[in-house]
C-alpha cells in the first residue's frame, strides 16, 4: 500500500453502553415532548393572553376551551369595555405543525357598552348582516350586539402563525404578542367609535 492511498477511517473509541442507553432515552423523551408541544402552542398563547390582560387590570369573565378551540372574554371595570380573543388551532399534531406551521384562526373582538338603544339595535341589524357573510377569509370586520347587557362588539378574523410569538419551547414573546393585539384592538376601537358616531 502506497502512502497516497486513502486509509480506512479509524474505529470510533468504544462507548459505554449505559451512556448509549441514556442518550437513547433522552432523545426519546425529547421527541415525545416535541409531539406534545405541537398540541400545546395554542394553549400556551391563550395562557399568555390571559396573564397579560389580567396583569393590566382586565378581569377574565369567560373561558371556554376544548383543547383546540379557545375563547376568552375580558371586562375592564373602569371603562365598561370588553375584549374577546378566540384561537382555533389548525395544527393539533406534529405532522400538521411541520407541514403548515402552527397556524391558527384568531378572532379578536372589542366591545363597548352603549346607553343608546338605537345604537345597540343598529348593531344587532349589522349582526344579522354579518351572519350572511359565509367566508373563512381573514380581514372581515363583523359587528355584534348584545341587547341584554348593552354591549356592541366589532371583531375581525386573522390567520396567524403562533410560532411568531413563541421563543424556544415554552417562552412567549409578550412584547410582540401585546403589540399585535393592541394594534388590532386599536383598529377595532376606531372602527366601532366611527360607526357609533361617538
Amino acid at each position: 500500500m502506497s502512502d497516497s492511498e486513502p486509509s480506512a477511517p479509524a474505529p470510533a473509541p468504544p462507548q459505554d453502553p449505559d451512556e448509549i442507553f441514556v442518550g437513547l432515552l433522552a432523545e426519546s423523551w425529547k421527541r415525545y415532548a416535541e409531539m406534545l408541544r405541537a398540541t400545546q402552542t395554542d394553549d400556551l398563547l391563550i395562557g399568555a393572553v390571559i396573564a397579560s390582560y389580567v396583569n393590566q387590570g382586565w378581569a377574565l369573565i369567560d373561558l371556554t376551551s376544548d383543547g383546540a378551540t379557545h375563547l376568552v372574554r375580558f371586562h375592564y371595570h373602569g371603562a365598561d369595555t370588553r375584549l374577546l380573543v378566540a384561537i382555533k388551532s389548525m395544527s393539533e399534531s406534529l405532522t400538521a405543525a411541520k407541514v403548515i406551521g402552527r397556524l391558527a384562526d384568531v378572532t379578536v373582538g372589542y366591545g363597548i357598552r352603549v346607553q343608546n338603544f338605537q345604537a345597540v339595535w343598529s348593531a344587532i341589524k349589522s349582526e344579522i348582516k354579518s351572519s350572511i357573510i359565509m367566508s373563512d377569509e381573514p380581514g372581515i370586520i363583523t359587528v355584534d350586539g348584545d341587547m341584554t347587557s348593552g354591549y356592541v362588539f366589532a371583531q375581525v378574523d386573522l390567520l396567524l402563525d403562533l410560532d411568531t410569538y413563541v421563543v424556544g419551547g415554552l417562552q412567549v414573546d409578550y412584547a410582540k404578542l401585546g403589540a399585535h393585539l393592541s394594534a388590532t384592538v386599536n383598529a377595532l376601537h376606531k372602527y366601532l367609535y366611527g360607526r357609533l358616531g361617538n
Partner: protein
Amino acid sequence: MLNKLMEMSQKREMRESRDEMVVGELVLAFAQLGMPAVRFAAGMGQQSVRFATPADPLLHSVAVTLDRKTGSGALSDSLVGSKAVITVVAEVKNYLADPDDLVNMWRTDFANIARLPMLGQVKLDHQLNSVLATKKLMIELNEFTRDPAAGRVQLNQLIASTLEEMRGHLAPYKKASPFEIDG
C-alpha cells in the same frame, strides 16, 4: 328602564363570572412563577389548567381544576357565598420506570385510599413514569374578586404554600436523572 335592565344583566354576568376571574388570577400567578399554562379544558362551572414548570427542578407539571359549587345565583350568593373547590395535582416525572416500581409503591397507594383530600390532606398516586400529589381546597371566590389587589396577594400565598407542601411529599419519589425535559 332599558338601562336598569342592562345594569342588572351586567351584575348577573359579573356574579356568574367569579370563577373565571379567579382562573385568570391563577394563570397570572403561575406565569409570574415561571410556570406557563400549556393546557386548558373549560366549560360550564369547571375549568382545568395544566402548567409546565421549566424553572422547577423537582416538579414536571402542575394541574389546577376549579369547580364552582355555589353562588351562581343571587340568592345562593347572598346566603352561602360563592364556594369553589380547587384541586391541585403536582407531578414528578421519572424518565425510566418498570412495573416493579408500582409493586414497591403499593403500600403508599393503599394507605392513601382512606385519605380524604377534601380535608386538605395530600394524596399520592403512582403511575409508571409519574408520581402525582393531589390536594383539594375549599375557597370563597368573593375573597379573591372583591378586592383584586388584596386577593392577588392572598392567592399567591395560597399557591406558594400548596406547592411547597406538595414538593415536600413528592421529593422522596424523584429519581436522579442525567437529563430533564420540560413539561
